[in-house]
């Protein structure tokens, strides 16, 4: 990049050079211009102060020579560096060192429908540079933000290749609606929500195409996006061309991924021992193969069968360049990420190009196009294979001697062969998309321009499923089925923007923007199914039996119409004001409720530009910011929640039947979030220390909530109407963000820079539909649906909700306690249970009787953990030594709780599946008096872990012990070495000879190590299907892999 600019200037200035007039006192001054690291600077402009024509530029080695009066002064300037005035004082050799300009001074930030200098910002905006992208292994843009931007919490919902993340900018704003920000990619809006853990709406974008990301956080910055901005806006700028010679860049890596951690499951000996104990307890029939567990081997390690090392490759090639009037960029990319679990993987091809051209002196046009194709394997998640692999017993072999897949010997209450399913089932999603943006921009008068812009995003999303015939032991499937679905998504937006820019009297700087925008998005879906295939070979529907055909189709569209404006005014570069106003209309609401106003205003004071701080040796820059704004959310999944609809239902003989589809709410309207922000940007010691701090308060009202209703209203299960959407309740988020950049060491050969981000958010629900209103998050496992989170007034969203284990019945006296009056009372037992081996018994858990009614029932559930972290943080240290650079980034979360949900089954010693090793340590009961009866007064716990219950033969007791309690809630705090990146830049002197500008070899280690006490795979859990109510619940989540890559970066 630097070289291109230099060459460009070089050329321009060479042309301008004219023979110079030489005076009598003229001397020839020679010298070299270097930067602080000692690199020669090419094409530096050197002018005699006061002269318009006497000047030169440095050559390829940074040398210059100029004839100049001996008392004159040199004006040395270079793009990106502070300019220097040098007194000649008769010297003939002058070596000049230029300081790099503090980046933030020139940095341009993309704001809604325009750009601003970072120094002019009044709102709260974080930026992530291309540098951060190249120093991490990311396959999707959402992952880039992890630990890199204050106020932005990123958690991957799954480690499955191509999966989604949950991104929370300044907390959770909505209970039922989407909490994902929108992404504006070169003008095209992409919604970050997919409502699925597996599907990532951003997966079609190649991270290496990205030049910068700017995160608009507070409402004063986002209000310009009005109705869609409630969860923040992430502006993504892709790389564009610069005039000059074409520059070709290649970047690619290969690497492997592996399981970061394995769970300790039972091996065959242990499983046999436990099964024998189960059969002794009368839970299962004895297994004749397990008479002597000590003679058995380890059996099948299903975890190892399903997970393995996996390859990952990427290649990216980009070409940028242009003439003076036209610039272009072309990029192609390829990514192939195999999954660490068999039956997963992600492959992507990208092609991107953009052209900008000044077609008339007053007219500019440009077009951006990007095409992508991706292919994601989904077998592992659709078939819950991770859960199956954890539960499949070690006595079942993965394969037969002939290599075919084996399976269990019966079909009842056994697990299938997860490896077999992963390998034989076809299940993938192929997405193709084209996204584009084109504009025409006319400069009507000086400072007044008009831009008309059209953007579109069309996508085709095909899924392919084929289930062949197979036999895994006793599990036989002879029905061959194939499913195909195609969905077509469309989005277009058209906008017109008038922009006026002027400076009056040198101190009144004004920018006015007015615009109009129309957006429409929609989808169409078609589905086909057949079974009755004659072979497993050809998978298309027409190969199946036509009489088995099923099909379906649906569609949905919505539109938004908008008007907006922004006024920016700066007085003497000291007092800055930004005000925006947007009016949006949405088709998702009934007439009369469609339109909403979204205003904002922000004020900033550049204190450092006041005379009392100017040229202050310590405080280089200081800006105080104050802002307020209101944004909206219309992101309900239903386009017609405001009107009553009928949906079709199949009948056997009577054609199409109809059922009520929803409960309408004609008064439905915008959810709105008002937010206030106070911030400071401080730069010390020529910006070697930069600190940005923000305090915010956000209040969301008229929450879009799908009313949680009891089932008797007819809103649960098959054939129900969907519950109504309503504007209900309010919640708040308040928090603090810090971002600190320091240049710790900046020597010729060595530099060390640090970046620290810190985010703290507190969420609280202020009101709901009724004073006792609740919203529950539920997880269904088999035929059991459990409430796992509850959202109530006065608490943060999605509190884990269940029973509290306060101890264990260790001895007979534990069944009684003395109340405060000294009366002996029976300890509360689960409802319907008495003291007995099939009821409550020695070795069972004692649950807290929260409401003190003497019985443990659903009323005794309470909040048992908060999934919201107390704070999250990220630390990045970058070092460079000569041609080496090293960057280490850490990210962490503190104080949040997570649920290790599968432990409810995997630690239950009575369960009939394979289990965690912990299950072996169940409480062993022994008689106190060996000849006495089996009575609770004659039993004590003689073995096992102190926190484990007994093995209960009665399903009631066993279910009771493993009810959802705080036993399964764990500390989710972690510190992760997110990335270590090591690079070596080959010396320029060598590269120049072979015509290469830059060649860098690097290695990246991603997800290196996680410090955590969490017992599951990975404490970074995210939100199940991006559902805010199911945050932090690990139900056999696909673990994020550890990745090691080696790559090279080449440009010429």
């Amino acid at each position, binding site marked *: 990049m630097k070289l291109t600019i230099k060459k460009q200037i070089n050329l321009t200035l060479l042309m301008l050079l004219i023979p110079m007039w030489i005076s009598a006192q003229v001397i020839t001054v020679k010298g070299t211009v270097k930067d602080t690291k000692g690199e020669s600077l090419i094409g530096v402009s050197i002018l005699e102060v006061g002269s318009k024509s006497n000047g030169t530029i440095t050559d390829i080695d940074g040398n210059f020579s100029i004839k100049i009066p001996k008392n004159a002064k040199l004006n040395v300037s270079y793009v990106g560096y502070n300019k220097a005035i040098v007194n000649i004082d008769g010297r003939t050799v002058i070596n000049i060192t230029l300081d790099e300009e503090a980046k933030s001074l020139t940095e341009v930030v993309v704001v809604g429908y325009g750009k601003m200098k970072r120094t002019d910002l009044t709102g709260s905006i974080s930026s992530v540079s291309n540098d951060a992208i190249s120093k991490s292994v990311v396959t999707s843009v959402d992952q880039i933000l992890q630990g890199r931007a204050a106020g932005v919490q990123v958690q991957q919902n799954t480690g499955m290749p191509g999966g989604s993340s949950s991104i929370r900018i300044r907390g959770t704003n909505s209970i039922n609606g989407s909490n994902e920000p929108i992404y504006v990619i070169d003008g095209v809006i992409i919604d970050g929500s997919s409502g699925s853990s597996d599907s990532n709406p951003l997966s079609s974008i190649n991270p290496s195409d990205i030049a910068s990301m700017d995160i608009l956080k507070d409402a004063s910055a986002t209000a310009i996006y009005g109705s869609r901005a409630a969860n923040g806006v992430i502006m993504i700028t892709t790389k564009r061309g610069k005039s000059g010679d074409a520059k070709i860049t290649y970047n690619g890596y290969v690497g492997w991924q592996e399981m970061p951690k394995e769970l300790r499951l039972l091996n065959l000996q242990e499983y046999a021992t436990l099964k024998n104990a189960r059969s002794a307890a*009368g839970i299962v*029939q004895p297994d004749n193969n397990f008479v002597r567990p000590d003679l058995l081997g380890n059996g099948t390690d299903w975890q190892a069968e399903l997970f393995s090392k996996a390859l990952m490759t990427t290649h990216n090639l980009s070409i940028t360049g242009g003439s003076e009037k036209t610039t272009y960029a072309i990029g192609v990319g390829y990514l192939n990420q195999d999954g660490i679990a068999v039956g997963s993987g992600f492959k992507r091809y990208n092609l991107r190009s953009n052209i900008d051209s000044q077609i008339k002196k007053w007219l500019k046009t440009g077009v951006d196009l990007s095409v992508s194709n991706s292919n994601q394997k989904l077998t592992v998640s659709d078939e819950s294979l991770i859960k199956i692999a954890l539960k499949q017993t070690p006595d079942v072999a993965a394969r037969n001697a002939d290599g075919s897949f084996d399976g269990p010997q019966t079909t*009842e*209450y056994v697990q*299938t062969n997860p490896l077999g399913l992963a390998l034989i089932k076809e299940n993938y999603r192929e997405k193709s998309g084209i996204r584009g943006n084109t504009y025409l921009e*006319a400069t*009507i*008068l000086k400072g007044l321009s*008009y831009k*008309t812009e059209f953007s579109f995003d069309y996508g085709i999303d095909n899924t392919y499923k084929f289930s062949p015939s197979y036999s895994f032991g006793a*599990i*036989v499937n002879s*029905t061959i089925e194939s499913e195909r679905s195609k969905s077509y998504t469309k989005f277009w937006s*058209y906008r*017109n923007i008038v922009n006026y820019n002027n400076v009056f009297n040198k101190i009144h700087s004004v920018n006015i923007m007015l615009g109009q*925008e*129309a957006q429409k998005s929609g989808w169409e879906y078609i589905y086909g199914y057949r079974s*009755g295939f004659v072979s497993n070979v050809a998978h298309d529907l027409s190969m199946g*039996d036509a*009489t088995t055909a099923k099909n379906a189709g*649906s*569609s949905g569209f919505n*539109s938004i119409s908008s008007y907006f404006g922004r006024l920016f005014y700066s007085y003497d570069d000291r007092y800055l004001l930004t005000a925006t106003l947007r009016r949006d209309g949405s*088709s998702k609401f009934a007439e009369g409720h469609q339109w909403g106003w979204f205003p904002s205003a922000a004020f900033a004071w550049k204190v450092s530009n006041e005379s009392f701080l100017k040229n202050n040796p310590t405080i280089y820059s200081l800006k105080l910011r104050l802002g307020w704004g209101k944004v909206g959310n219309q992101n309900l999944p239903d*386009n017609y929640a405001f009107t009553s*609809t*009928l949906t079709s*239902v*199949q009948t*056997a003989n*009577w*054609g*199409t*039947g*109809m*059922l*009520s589809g929803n*409960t309408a709410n004609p008064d439905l309207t915008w959810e709105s979030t008002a937010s206030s922000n106070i911030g400071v940007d401080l730069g010390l010691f020529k910006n070697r220390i930069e600190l940005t701090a923000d305090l915010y308060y956000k209040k969301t009202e008229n929450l879009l909530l799908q009313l949680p*209703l009891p*089932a*008797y209203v*007819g809103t649960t*299960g*098959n*054939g*129900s*109407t969907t*519950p109504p959407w309503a504007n209900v309740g309010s919640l708040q988020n308040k928090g603090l963000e810090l971002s600190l950049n320091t240049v710790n060491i900046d020597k010729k050969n060595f530099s060390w820079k640090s970046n620290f981000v810190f985010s703290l958010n507190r969420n609280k629900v202020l009101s709901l539909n*009724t004073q006792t209103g609740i919203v529950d998050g539920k997880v269904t496992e*088999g*035929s*059991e649906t*459990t*409430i796992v989170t509850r959202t109530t007034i006065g608490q943060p969203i999605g509190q884990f909700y269940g029973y509290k284990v306060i101890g264990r019945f260790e001895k007979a006296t534990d069944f009684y306690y003395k109340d405060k009056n000294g009366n002996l009372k029976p300890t509360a037992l689960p409802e*319907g249970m008495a003291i007995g081996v*099939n009821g409550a018994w020695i070795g069972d858990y004692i649950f807290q009787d929260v409401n003190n009614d003497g019985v443990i029932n*659903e009323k005794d559930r309470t909040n048992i953990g908060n999934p919201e972290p107390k704070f999250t943080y990220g630390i990045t240290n970058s070092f460079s030594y000569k041609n080496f650079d090293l960057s280490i980034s850490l990210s962490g979360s503190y104080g949040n709780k997570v649920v290790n949900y599968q432990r409810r089954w995997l630690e239950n010693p009575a369960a009939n599946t394979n289990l965690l090793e912990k299950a072996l340590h169940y409480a062993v009961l022994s008689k106190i008096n060996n000849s006495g009866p089996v009575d609770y007064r004659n039993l004590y716990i003689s073995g096992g872990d102190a926190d484990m219950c007994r093995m209960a033969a*009665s*399903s*009631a007791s066993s279910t009771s012990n493993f009810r959802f309690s705080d036993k399964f809630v764990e500390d989710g705090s972690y510190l992760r070495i997110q990335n270590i990146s090591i690079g070596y830049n080959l010396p320029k002197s060598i590269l120049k000879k072979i015509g290469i500008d830059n060649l860098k070899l690097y290695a990246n280690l991603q997800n290196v190590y996680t410090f955590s006490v969490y017992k599951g795979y990975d404490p970074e859990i995210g939100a199940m299907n991006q559902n805010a109510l199911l945050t932090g619940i690990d139900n056999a989540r696909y673990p994020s892999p550890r990745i090691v890559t080696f790559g090279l970066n080449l440009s010429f």
Partner: protein
Amino acid sequence: MKTINKTIYGFFLATILLLIGCSKSFLEIQPNDRLTLDNFFQSESDLQSATAGLYNKVWFDFNDKFYYGLGDGRANNLYAPYSDYIYPFTDLTESSLTGPLVSAWASFYNVIGQSNNVINNIKKNSKGVTEDQKNAAIAEARFMRGTAYWYLASLWGNVILIEDNTTLVNNPVVNTNPRSDVFEFAMRDLEFAAKYLPSAASQTGRLTKWSAFGMLARVYLSYAGISDNPNSGTRSTTYLELARKAAKKVCEESGLALMSNYADLFKVANNNNSESLFSLQWVPNGDYGVINTQQAYFAVSSDITGDDAAWGYYTMASFNVMNEYETADSIRRKATFMAYGDKYTELSKSTGGYIYTTLHNSKKCCNVKKGVVGSTKDTDGASSRMNSALNTYMLRLADVYLLYTEAIMGNNSSTNDATALLYFNKVRTRAGLLPKTSVTYEDIRHERRMELAMEGQYWYDEVRRSYYKQQEVLDRINTEDRAHIDLYNYDKITNTCTATINTSARAVNTATVDRLLMPYPESETVQNPLLKQTPVKYTFTEARITNLFN
């Protein structure tokens, strides 16, 4: 000059473009994948499609597991130690969290809610249809609602009566209504249905007047037993008489007759046969939600279904039910439960028929046959993975015959009334059994259990009996050895069933008065604490139909 031109062009363009966004229609988008209420209920066929949905999807969650899990499982017709949708009911260990209980509760209320929507939408929105057409459609919906309320009253007793779901949305926290009001509500619905349903179905499989009379017979008979004293031993003569009259209508006036071959009742090809009065209408090759999944839960192995959905290995006939079969009752036994060595030519046709030789830990137990129809190939494409396409009997003629006998017997301990015996013996002789000359309640109980085993009825028979002979029912449940017997050997030739008593086999609860009712699902009591409070009398607004039997 040039600048001015540009300016003019620019603003001209800008003005036009700004106008585009103003068009009002831009924000009005009509759906293409659903209908809105304004353009429906305009013809008889609209009304028919509005009621068609009440025959399958709304009952799906009920049919999927609860129909047999409770109807047969709780009544100890089934032994399924690993199926958590059966054994909690058999073992009397269900709680407010038991999954199928929750989905059945929701399913009944979906039937009620969707029926209410049909009734209210027809009343409010229909245009261009006659009063008779409206009443016929409303009658169908009220039949469904009444039937669902009979189930709710039998299972939970006091429940919430709902006529308009849209008002409930705004305030869902309401009181329950007493069981007697729930019964009355159900009876009023069914009486309306009996009055306005046609005597011949407008489309095969739809409800008729006879369906409503049959269901009324069941509900009247149940209600007859309710009094302040659950051990009174007598029933209300008024309602016994109503039950008799309603059953009489079906038995003597409908012109319907029993199928000649019992086993044929449970073949897909015989869906909606002459004996069927109300059956859930499942869709061959249909989507999830409109299919009959029962075969997948019953089929003993993949050999039967031809796919991996065959999870019935451990869903067996109980020792108790196998012990009750009369030796001559082999036709019904074979059509209901498979015994070692049984051959079913309708299953595995390609291999010449399926022979049941499954052993359970080397014991000859019996797996479920009724509801198992075979693979796609066996059924000419009707069944598919997790879908037998077999209609689910909710009420069939033989059931009403036995209700008729019971109603005629009334408060007597036995009967030799000719009509009572005629219909009772029609059921017996079809099963290949000798007719009886006198019938006691015990005979009826036994006959109903055998005739309707695996048709989700026996538990409701017990509930009906418990309304006036509570202790007898509790004693019966508590002496069935539910806790002590798991596997057994059944010999179909000698009809002997042997098992050893295993003292610690299962953890079961004792049947108590409380256990005769189901607990309200936890999710409901949490959201509405009033559910556990004293019920509030329901105010009926319309006059009850009293001239049904004039």
